């Protein structure tokens, strides 16, 4: 009996043990959850993997051996025990364990088959900057970041050269699974990792939104344990990085007199010598304070942060302030079967803008013009024809440039933006293998702005001897317009909703993941309302329409305008299958069918497949004994991506109102309509096809790691706006134009070493080469398109098959004639492209005891810039100082510059300059304080120089020219028209966490 009981109890215990579900969490050595860890019950062969939160459950008997393995970690075995098992895996000395977020899923870095670059918080956090994007400049091959120094503006980012042309060249951002068009002032402090998807096989799953690359942002989550508080703060000053020296009043007079052929047109002895750039700029300031609180309990994690960022721009009076509040929570319900996460951001930005055209005016205005005349009136370009001196009573208005200081002084623009964006996501584990995910993300922006123009004061500033009475008299019996108040309101809304089902299962050595789903996106739900009234009281507290004396009673009529955009909606169905065998062979295939509201009926839908494979050679038996190579993988991928960005939301023939005209004895306005542009009904998807071949390796005990990618991408049916014959279309028409090829190589290397406990350092570098070429022009209008107009009748570009898209096409300077004027080739010549052929980044870091030091540099080469501001000079305007260092005179016929002239310059190679540059992005020196108070985990102070140096031959303000005209390659891209100086910043900062 006893034995029976024993037996039974044993039986029951065994029975109980057999049916026991062991569950737990696997984390890495930093206590972060590890997904996709393989867990095998040694005796039974049962296997599972951890979910995204590192959680697992598996049936095993107590005491049985479980093996936890994951690429990049040391394989660990544990005995199954009662209760939750918390297993921590130790890192193998490499980073392949990193989890990379891919479209609609995650993957171990080691299993990736596409071209993906990951940047971790540790690389970002040490270099404070207004935007996280700024901080990754030079750290990833093939990623080019163009700084924008306007207060509050985001830098632009270009991945693998020029992708699509319309609708922006910006990549798609996916913040914790939710699409975003930018990081919206997200603090760099909040970012845990950035994954940059570069090749078509990785991007295809995102469809057209991914056509310019995808940057996946994973934010920091609360971690289990005690509540954690972080505080980061910095203060800095901004200066102009590079000035262009302008002529002083003597050189100005000399140049213009020579151009005029009149030695006394301007006196050489002018009373003023104004440095206009100095007059309109100040030292800028930046200040940022960030606080976060995070933590986690058994079923919830929380993260809360607030950031205040303030900036005073270098242009006098420009200001920007932003407050972010961010809350992210995650809840687990139903025994971890349902996870709900929520992310909510509020961004409030206040902005006082000043017109950037003041820089261009400062470039052009003559130094002989004073900011103020001696009697206190604003300076104007008036010359006394008798004396040749600047003279307030002079009659000769020798140029048409305004007084930039007055321009800033009378500009009163204030804007307020409130942006709410966030997401709700639910992930339900339906069965052991199936997970269903639904993500809804939305962004709402509300904008409010006003602009107050004191028309009377502006008149007085432009007419230096006139009085306010003259101004009033100039209106005769009409109501005098003293000032204008403009009020602007707008809001925009966009959202995306993704639903997908994931199947994941490990069958012995086979690891299969499949995803199917749909995605819906609505963009451009935008509406604005704008109104204008005259004559409000001048004090700013009275600036509202109701207080205008010139109101609807005295001046009835339309004072309000309202515009509503047509939204763009896209729908997509997608599927992906990933297969991995024995952790060595990987295959991934995806397909996406996408439709967009823009195109006409039969042109709406496109299908875009992708396939890629990888072979982890270093896992093969024959490589096991190789001591030199620690890791080696080759990847190959092919993918197609569609792009449907067009100028217009709907590609249909339309009528536009506003072509009004007056008729009748009282000249009343009659409404008129017209067709502003013609439409090509055949407009459809542009397709980018790309083959990518990549190698990832680690050698020398994992100290040297690298990646090399070769790619060949062809964009077919490129969507571009073209000029049709005027009689067919007044405005530009968007058509599929031809094929553009981008071929290139990207290489990145990193050397990491720890010499001893006190010393460690790393060096990394990347290089990418890209060749852009227009292969074919399918469209007759495109084939004959001329572009890059300077607004003075001169054009600088032309479509040329066989050349880079947007190549400069100008007259070649062949010499000088007897008057010292340039002579030119009879036909235009190709003079290079604004697209760099190569870019490179270098970064270096060293840590010694508590000190850390890092420096990054970024450079481009092979590009040309058209110095458009110089080539747009009109007579009587200033010139650059250097011009007169070497120029043609009868006695110096070999001078570099032609004899001074006032005519509109011919578009020629004279204005084409080498655009190569090397810029030191960032130099940081930090010191982590020794533990001085037990509650404080870490305290670090640092100093940083942002963009302190640039090395370039380019003589303009900045070789980083985004270009006007929406950076259209056949428009303003690569032409420096506005003189906008870039900044350098010096910062001092502090990080504390406790």
């Amino acid at each position, binding site marked *: 009996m006893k034995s029976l009981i024993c037996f039974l109890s044993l039986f029951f215990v065994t029975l109980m043990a057999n049916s026991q579900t062991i569950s737990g969490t696997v984390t890495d050595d930093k206590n972060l959850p590890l997904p996709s860890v393989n867990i095998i019950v040694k005796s039974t062969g049962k296997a599972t993997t951890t979910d995204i939160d590192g959680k697992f459950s598996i049936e095993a008997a107590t005491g049985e051996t479980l093996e936890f393995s994951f690429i990049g970690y040391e394989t660990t075995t544990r005995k199954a025990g009662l209760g939750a098992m918390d297993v921590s895996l130790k890192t193998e000395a490499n980073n392949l364990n990193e989890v990379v977020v891919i479209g609609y899923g995650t993957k171990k870095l080691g299993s990736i088959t596409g071209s993906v670059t990951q940047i971790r918080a540790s690389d970002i956090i040490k270099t404070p900057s207004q935007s996280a994007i700024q901080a990754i400049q030079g750290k990833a091959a093939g990623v080019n970041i163009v700084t924008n120094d306007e207060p509050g503006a985001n830098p632009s980012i270009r991945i693998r050269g020029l992708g699509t042309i319309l609708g922006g060249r910006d990549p798609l951002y996916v913040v914790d699974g939710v699409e975003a068009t930018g990081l919206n002032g997200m603090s760099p402090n909040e970012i845990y990792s950035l994954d940059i998807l570069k090749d078509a096989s990785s991007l295809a799953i995102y469809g057209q939104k991914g056509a310019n690359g995808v940057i996946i942002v994973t934010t920091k989550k609360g971690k289990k344990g005690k509540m954690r508080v972080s505080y980061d703060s910095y203060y800095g000053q901004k200066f102009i990085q590079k000035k262009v020296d302008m002529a002083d009043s003597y050189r100005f007079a000399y140049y213009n007199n020579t151009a*005029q052929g*009149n030695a006394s047109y301007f006196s050489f002895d002018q009373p003023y010598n104004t440095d206009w750039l100095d007059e309109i700029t100040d030292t800028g300031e930046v200040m940022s304070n960030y606080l976060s609180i995070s933590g986690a309990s058994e079923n919830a994690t929380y993260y809360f942060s607030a950031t205040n960022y303030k900036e005073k721009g270098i242009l006098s009076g420009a200001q920007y302030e932003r407050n972010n509040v961010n809350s992210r929570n995650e809840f687990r319900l139903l025994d971890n079967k349902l996870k709900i996460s929520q992310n909510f951001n509020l961004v409030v930005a206040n902005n006082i803008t000043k017109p950037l055209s003041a820089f261009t005016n400062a470039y052009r205005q003559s130094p002989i013009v004073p900011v103020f005349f001696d009697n206190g009136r604003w300076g104007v370009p008036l010359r006394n024809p008798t004396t040749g001196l600047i003279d307030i*009573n002079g*009659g*000769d*208005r020798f140029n048409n440039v305004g007084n930039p200081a007055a321009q800033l002084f009378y500009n009163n623009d204030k804007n307020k933006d409130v942006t709410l964006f966030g997401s709700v996501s639910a992930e339900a584990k339906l*069965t052991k293998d*199936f997970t*269903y995910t*639904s993500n809804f993300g939305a962004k709402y922006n509300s904008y409010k702005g006003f602009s107050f123009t004191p028309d009377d004061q502006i*008149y007085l500033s432009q*007419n230096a001897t006139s009085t306010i009475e003259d101004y009033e008299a*100039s*209106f*005769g019996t*009409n109501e005098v*317009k003293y000032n204008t108040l403009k009020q602007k309101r707008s809001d925009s809304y966009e959202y995306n909703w993704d*639903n997908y089902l994931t199947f994941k299962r490990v069958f012995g050595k086979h690891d299969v993941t499949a995803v199917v789903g749909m995605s*819906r996106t609505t963009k451009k739900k935008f509406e604005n309302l704008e109104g204008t009234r005259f004559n409000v009281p001048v004090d700013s507290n009275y600036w509202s329409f109701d207080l205008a004396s010139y109101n609807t009673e005295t001046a009835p009529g339309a004072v309000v305008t309202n515009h*509503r*955009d*047509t939204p763009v*909606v896209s*729908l997509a*169905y997608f599927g992906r299958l990933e297969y991995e065998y024995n952790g060595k062979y990987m295959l991934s295939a995806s397909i996406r069918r996408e*439709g967009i*509201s823009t195109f006409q009926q039969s042109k*709406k839908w496109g299908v875009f497949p992708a396939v890629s494979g990888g072979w982890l050679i270093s896992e093969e038996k024959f490589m096991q004994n190789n001591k030199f190579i620690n890791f080696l993988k080759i990847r190959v991928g092919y993918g197609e991506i569609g792009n449907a960005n067009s100028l217009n*939301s709907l590609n*249909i*023939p*339309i*009528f536009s109102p506003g072509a009004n*005209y*007056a*008729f009748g*004895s*009282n*000249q*009343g306005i009659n*409404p*008129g309509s*017209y*067709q502003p542009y*013609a439409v*090509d009904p*055949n407009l459809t998807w542009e397709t980018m096809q790309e083959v990518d071949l990549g190698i990832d390796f680690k050698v020398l005990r994992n100290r040297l790691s690298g990646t090399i990618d070769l790619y060949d991408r062809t964009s077919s049916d490129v969507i571009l706006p073209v*000029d049709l*014959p*005027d*009689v*067919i279309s*007044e405005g530009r028409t968007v058509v599929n134009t031809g094929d553009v090829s981008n071929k290139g190589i990207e290489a990145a290397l990193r050397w990491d070493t720890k010499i001893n406990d006190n010393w460690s350092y790393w060096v990394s570098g990347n290089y990418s080469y890209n060749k852009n070429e227009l292969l074919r022009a399918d469209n007759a209008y495109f084939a004959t398109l001329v572009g890059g107009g300077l607004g003075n*009748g*001169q054009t600088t570009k032309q479509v040329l098959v066989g050349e880079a898209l947007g190549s400069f096409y100008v007259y070649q300077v062949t010499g000088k004639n007897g008057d010292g004027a340039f002579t030119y080739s009879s036909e235009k010549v190709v003079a290079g492209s604004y697209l760099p052929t190569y870019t490179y980044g270098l970064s270096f870091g060293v840590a010694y005891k508590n000190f850390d030091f890092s420096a990054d540099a970024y450079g481009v080469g092979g590009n040309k810039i058209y110095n458009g501001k110089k080539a747009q000079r*009109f*007579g*009587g305007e200033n010139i650059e100082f250097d011009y007169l260092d070497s120029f043609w005179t009868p006695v110096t016929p070999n001078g570099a510059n032609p004899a001074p002239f*006032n*005519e509109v310059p011919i578009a020629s190679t004279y204005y084409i300059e080498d655009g190569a540059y090397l810029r030191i992005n960032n130099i940081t020196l930090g010191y982590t304080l020794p533990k001085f108070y037990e509650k404080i985990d870490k305290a670090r102070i640092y100093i940083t120089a942002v963009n302190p140096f640039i090395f370039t031959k380019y003589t303009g303000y900045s070789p980083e020219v985004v270009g006007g005209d929406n950076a259209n390659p056949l428009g303003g891209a690569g032409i420096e028209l506005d003189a906008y100086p870039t900044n350098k910043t010096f910062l001092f900062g502090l990080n504390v966490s406790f």
Partner: protein
Amino acid sequence: MKNRVNKKLTILLLSALTFGSCEEDLNFKPNDVIEVDDFLSDPNNAIQLVNGVYSKQLDYNMYSFSWIGITSITSDDADKGSTPTDTGTDKGKMDNLTFSKTDISFSDVWEGRYQAIGRANTALFYLDQFAIDQTLKDRYIGEVKFLRALFYFDLVRCFGGVPLVTTKIDINDSDAIDNIVYVRKTKQETYAQIEADLLDAINRLPLRGAYGSNELGRASKGAAQALLAKAYLYQEKWQEAFDMSGLVMSSGQYSLLPNYANVWREVGENGTESIYEVQATLTKGLVDYTNVQGPRGTPDLGWGFNTPSLNLVNSYEAGDLRKNATILFAPGVLWDGFIAPTTWNNPRYNYKAYQSSVAESWNGDKGNTAKNLRILKYSDILLIRAEAGFHIGMTSEAADRISDIRVRAGLSAVTSVTLESILKERRAEMAMEHDRWFDLVRTGRAQAAMAADGKTFLIGIHEVFPIPQDQIIASDGKLAQNTGY
């Protein structure tokens, strides 16, 4: 159990894929522009298409700086003006007759006219589809055809024969583009098209007096006849020009204003002397027309271009009232009491382009003034009648018409005329009104007149301006360039 899971899965999946994923969601109407079908369904919109063609005339590339440059600064009536340092892009080259095929003025004038012709063709295309009263539709078509003829008239005078596009052309119709849009017709063919449009317009349009007072300014039968008379004159079809100008005179719709100076002032706008003018108001002005020609300096009223030349000043007979009505002399007191100061750049400005800030409509916006641009006026018709009459031997009619004009200008009537005296009268009457250059060219007197003004007119080249180079490139070389450029 398994079935249930599968079912649950299926339901979830299906709901996920279908909820909100209806493909119909991709079809919706625009918010910011009006769809063609919706536009055509409202008969009130027909007139809007016609107004849209008129409205094009106000654009910068129609009658503004570029037009002023190539029709007036080129001639002996005007100099570039402004300051020596300000070349006005290519206006110095216009003044010196050293212009070239890449100058922006030619591109502007070409583009503006063809955009306007495109609007006219589009309007005609859609007018046909409107269900509206036939009489009204006829009038609308007549108005648009008058405008199209006017645009071609500018083109043929500037460039000679040009491509004749008279239908709305589909962007994918490469045949039409290669054979019509990019192929220049002869000067004769171009005039034939102008005549055809105007003859049709004459049949469709009402007399000026038949329009309601709210419609004043629309193209009338008289406007079409006047333009046709002028087109005949340019072709030296003297009899037709004589007859057609006679029809305008006998219509009883027009007469000379007693005061010549009022013709170009606000009081003269749409007056009895006016046959056709571009209508401008404060809110919808002729972009920069007066600004380009406004006095430069302090107070700053404009850019100071297109200043009357000394040659013009000296061309007036003593006592000719038109001199001081055409030329603003500075310093001095202007007609409205405004003091022209010594702090203006130039001694003379175009009075016909002066918009008074104190005595006329004015809101401080120099770029958009209410100045109407006179295109066809009754005195022009009298001069056409006289010139054509002279050529067909109707010399007493010619003398009478010239006398009408002279008497109004404060000069004595004449009993006999010569071609020389008619053309001299034409210059005085029409000075600074964008006709002088074309008159010199059409009468073969350009070289002599330019020489007298110190400029070199190249016979065989300068009779027409160069076809803009960017147009030739866009046509892939199919558009032929004029001789000598």
